[in-house]
C-alpha cells in the first residue's frame, strides 16, 4: 500500500480534565473519501479540530504527507493543505460571499492562485456567480454550506475535512451536498467526512470508522460497514 496522505497514530485528546479521545488511529490514502461516523458527542468533531490544529493532543501523533503536524498552529496546518469546514460552516457572516472566498485563499500557498481558483469555484457553484456581493449571513443554510465548501476549496486543500455538512439542511439540499462531495471525489479530492447521516456517508466513503465515546470501535470499507448488522442496529434503524 502506498504511503498514506494522513496517518493518525494513538491520538489522545483532553477537554480540560476530561479525556475526549482514546488512542485514535486511522489512515487516509490520497484520493479517497474516509468517513467517521458516530452519534452526537462521540468525539468526531474533536478529531477534526485536533487534525486542524485547534486542539492539542496530549499523546499520539498526526503525520501528513510524511511529516508530523500535531502541535503545529492551525494557520500552518491549513497552509500545508488540510482544510476544515467546521460544524458551524465557518463562514464570516458579516462579510460578502466574495470576501469569504478571498479569505479562503489567505494562505501563502493559495494566495497567488486566488483569481484562478475563484473562477473555478464560480464555475462549480452557481451561487457564487450570482450572489458574490451578498452577505454570507443572509444566505439560506444550503447556500451557506455550498459557500463553506467552496471557501475551503479556495485554500487548494490536499485533504478536505467536512464536519456534518448535512446538519440542519432540508432533504433535497442534503442530496445536493452529497452530490457535490461525489463530484469532488471524482475530481480526486481527498475527503475526511464526519457525518450523522450514516447511510449517505457510508455509501460515498471508500473507508470508514465508527467512533463511540471517544474510541474507534469498528473500521472497514464503506460497503462493509453499510452491511454490518451492528451498525444497522445502533445507528441506521431510525435514520434510514
Amino acid at each position: 500500500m502506498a504511503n498514506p496522505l494522513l496517518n493518525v497514530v494513538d491520538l489522545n485528546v483532553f477537554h480540560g480534565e476530561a479525556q475526549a479521545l482514546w488512542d485514535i488511529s486511522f489512515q487516509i490514502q490520497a484520493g479517497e473519501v474516509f468517513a467517521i461516523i458516530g452519534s452526537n458527542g462521540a468525539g468526531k468533531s474533536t478529531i477534526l479540530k485536533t487534525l486542524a490544529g485547534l486542539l492539542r493532543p496530549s499523546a499520539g501523533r498526526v503525520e501528513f504527507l510524511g511529516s508530523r503536524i500535531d502541535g503545529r498552529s492551525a494557520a500552518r496546518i491549513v497552509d500545508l493543505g488540510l482544510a476544515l469546514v467546521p460544524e458551524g460552516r465557518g463562514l464570516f457572516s458579516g462579510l460578502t460571499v466574495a470576501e469569504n472566498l478571498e479569505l479562503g485563499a489567505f494562505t501563502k500557498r493559495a494566495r497567488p492562485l486566488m483569481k484562478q481558483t475563484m473562477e473555478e469555484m464560480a464555475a462549480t457553484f452557481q451561487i457564487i456567480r450570482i450572489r458574490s456581493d451578498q452577505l454570507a449571513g443572509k444566505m439560506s443554510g444550503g447556500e451557506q454550506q455550498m459557500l463553506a465548501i467552496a471557501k475551503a476549496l479556495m485554500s487548494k486543500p490536499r485533504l478536505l475535512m467536512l464536519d456534518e455538512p448535512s446538519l440542519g439542511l432540508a432533504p433535497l439540499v442534503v442530496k445536493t451536498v452529497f452530490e457535490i462531495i461525489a463530484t469532488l471525489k471524482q475530481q480526486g479530492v481527498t475527503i475526511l467526512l464526519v457525518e450523522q447521516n450514516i447511510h449517505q456517508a457510508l455509501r460515498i466513503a471508500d473507508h470508514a470508522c465508527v467512533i463511540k465515546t471517544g474510541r474507534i470501535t469498528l473500521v472497514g470499507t464503506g460497503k462493509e460497514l453499510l452491511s454490518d448488522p451492528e451498525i444497522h442496529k445502533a445507528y441506521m434503524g431510525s435514520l434510514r
Partner: protein
Amino acid sequence: MLDFIPPIDILLQLLINGVLFGTMYGIAAIGLSLIFGTMRIVFIAQGTMIILAAYGSFWLFNLWSVNPYVSILIVVPASLIVGSGLYQVLFRKVAREGQFPTLLIAFGLMALLENLMSVVFSADARAIQTSYAAYALTFMGLKISFTRLMAFVMAVAGTVGVAFFLKKTLLGKAVRAASENLEYAMLVGITPHMVNTLTFAIGIGLAGLAGVATATAYAFDPFSGFVFSLKAMIALALGGMGNVVGALLGGLLLGVIEAFGAFFLSGGWADVISYAVFLLVLMFKPEGLFASGTSAKP
C-alpha cells in the same frame, strides 16, 4: 415665547465648533474600536498615546522647526511601530486572559506615561504656536479655525483610510474576519498575533494622527489623555463598538452635544451631559446608535 433660542448663525457656529472638536473624540474612538473589536481589550491608554504623539509633534516643531503637518510623516510611522511593540511586549501573553488583566495593563501604561511625561516635559499646558495658529476662515459670518478644520480633515482622512483598509485589502478583511470569529479565522490561515499586532499598530497609528491634530489645534498637558479616553468611550457607546464610521459619528455627536450643553447651560454642564448621555445610551441602546455587533467594520 421662543426667546431662549439664539439666532441661527450662533446655532450654526455651535454646530461647527461641536463637529470640529467632536472629530478628535471620533478618531480616538476609532482606535479604541479597532483594538476592542479584535482583541476585546479596553485600551484606556489610547488618550494618553494621543498626548504622547502630541508631545512628539510639539518637540519636533520647537526643537527642529518641523512643520506640524509635516511631522505626521514622522509621528504616525513612529506610532505604528510603538503600537506593534506595545502589543508584543504588554499584551501578547495576556491577550487570552480576559478583559480584566488587559484593562489593568492599559491602566498601568496610562499612569506610567502620564507621570513620565509630567517628569520629562513638565505638567505645563502646551500648544504649538505657529503663524497660522490663530487664523480663522470666515464663511457667511461663521468663523472656522484653520487648525481645527485641518484637525477635522485629518480625522476624516484617517477614518476613510482605515475604512478603506478594512473593506478593500485582504489584510483588512482578515482583521474583520478575526474580529467576527477568531477560530474560523485561524482555519483559513489567519494567525491571531498577526491580526492583533496589525490592529494595535493601526490603533496607535491613529492616536499618532490625532496627537498631531491635538498639538496644532488645542492645548494639552500630560494628564489630558484620560479625559480623551473617557470621551472616546462615550463616542464608542454612541457609535457602536467595532464600527469605524459609527465611532467617528459618535465623536461628532458628542462634540455637538457638549458644544450646545456648554452654551445653553455652562461649561461644567457639558461634561455632566456627556456622561449622562453615555449612561442613557448604554441603558437603552447598548449596541450604539449607528451600529450592530462588536466586530470591526469599515
